[in-house]
């Protein structure tokens, strides 16, 4: 028995089958804490999507035009696409390490439903990638000459939109986790599904720029978040089970 326990990575709730299993919320919290701890201990991985985001955004003034009029016009789109690509880039790691060292299999065997554990992992992913992207956005927005109101609305749309990106992405990551060349395939599968989020996100900021009331747009984005929150973990859990059975 001792040998078996040493295989399980630190932090994962180890269950004694005789003792009562922890409640669902406790298991989710434990998993969330473990994922956050793992991310914080690998600071470079934490930083990479942010660097990528900043660099992609910097390509546009250099590659297209540094004119303030162009950047003001295209800024929201550039920032949204940059955040989307940065999220996409980080998704491959969402389940891969756990898949490779067998933790994921242990998770699937837990008495708690897998989709809730997936939800906890996705939340951790958003906290370490999506949220920092939102926090970095005001700086980059000012560098693209966006006005204060646009930057505020942009941050709000990203705050609602990036969790949707993480949730939809979790399905793609779960589908491709067992594949050797999963990264490119993951992008191909997920980008078409990201398009509505992108359209609504940039549309909201543009409407705000025109002086319109954006509460309706934000409500639509929130509806998408709720929909993704309800459906994506189920799809991702189903996909994970398929990936686990294939390996």
């Amino acid at each position: 028995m001792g040998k078996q326990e040493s295989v399980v990575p630190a932090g994962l709730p180890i269950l004694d089958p005789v003792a009562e299993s922890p409640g669902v919320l406790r298991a989710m919290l434990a998993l969330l804490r473990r994922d956050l701890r793992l991310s914080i201990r690998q600071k470079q991985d934490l930083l990479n999507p942010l660097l990528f985001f900043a660099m992609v955004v910097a390509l546009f003034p250099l590659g297209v035009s540094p004119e303030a009029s162009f950047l003001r016009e295209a800024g929201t789109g550039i920032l949204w696409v940059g955040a989307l690509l940065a999220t996409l880039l980080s998704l491959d790691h969402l389940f891969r390490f756990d898949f490779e060292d067998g933790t994921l299999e242990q998770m699937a065997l837990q008495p708690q439903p897998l989709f809730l554990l997936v939800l906890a992992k996705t939340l951790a992913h958003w906290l370490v990638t999506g949220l920092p992207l939102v926090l970095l956005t005001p700086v980059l927005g000012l560098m693209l000459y966006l006005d204060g109101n646009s930057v505020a609305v942009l941050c709000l749309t990203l705050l609602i939109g990036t969790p949707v990106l993480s949730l939809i992405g979790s399905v793609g990551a779960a589908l491709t986790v067992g594949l050797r060349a999963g990264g490119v395939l993951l992008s191909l599968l997920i980008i078409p599904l990201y398009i509505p989020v992108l359209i609504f996100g940039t549309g909201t900021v543009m409407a705000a720029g025109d002086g319109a009331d954006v509460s309706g747009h934000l409500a639509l984005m929130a509806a998408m978040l709720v929909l993704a929150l309800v459906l994506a973990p189920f799809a991702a859990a189903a996909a994970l089970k398929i990936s686990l059975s294939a390996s």
Partner: protein
Amino acid sequence: MWQFFHKLGSPKWFYGIAGRFMPWLLGIGLLLALSGIVWGLGFAPKDYLQGNSYRIIFIHVPTAFLAQSVYLMMAVAGVVTLVWKMKLADVFVKAVAPVGAALTFLALFTGAVWGQPTWGTWWIWDARLTSMLILLFLYLGVMALGSAIADEKSAARAVAVLVLVGVVNIPIIKYSVNWWNTLHQPATFKLTEKPTMPPEMWVPLLLVVVGLYLWFGWIALYRMQTEVLRRERRSRWVQDLMHPGGRSDVSSGGARADGV
């Protein structure tokens, strides 16, 4: 009814029954589609606004119609794969995904050809065009995922999950794209939504649409048959089918499969 449902689980039974339907589907489908196309291209009246260039509608609209319904059919088959684990459902998804992609491409291509004389441009970022382009991406993604997973059973189930996620997204894509478009540019005219189309125009169009659906039934069955043969290549009935006259690779003492 239930017997029919259970028999669908048998690849051999399916192979036989599909072979019986296929000539009818192909024959009637081609007859309807060709007569509709000849009628539409040769005899239907000219459009007062667009002249003869509108006639591509007789190709464009049916392909676009079918391209969307094929995805819905794939989604239904995806549910069947995941819930009842019926083998033929995933054979269907695998068989028709390239057909759907080809139809979507045809719809986009004919749309571009139509757009050039009518709108003066091959492509605009119109709501419909964009959502069809995304549909093409979804088809290509489904095909890419299916070929990336080596294990056939997991490939089928993974593809089913992806198709279902995509189908949840299709209405969202459609509305988001509509909404995005109306924000930026005034509505373009859409011939298909004019209710004042005379019957000499819509009857041939309907003929082509129905004909193309029947043709799709044929090609779906044809491709499914091929896939069934490939999957069952080791079974005796396929061996017998491939080597009539008893020159079977599998040494068998039993009776031959009959009626195929």
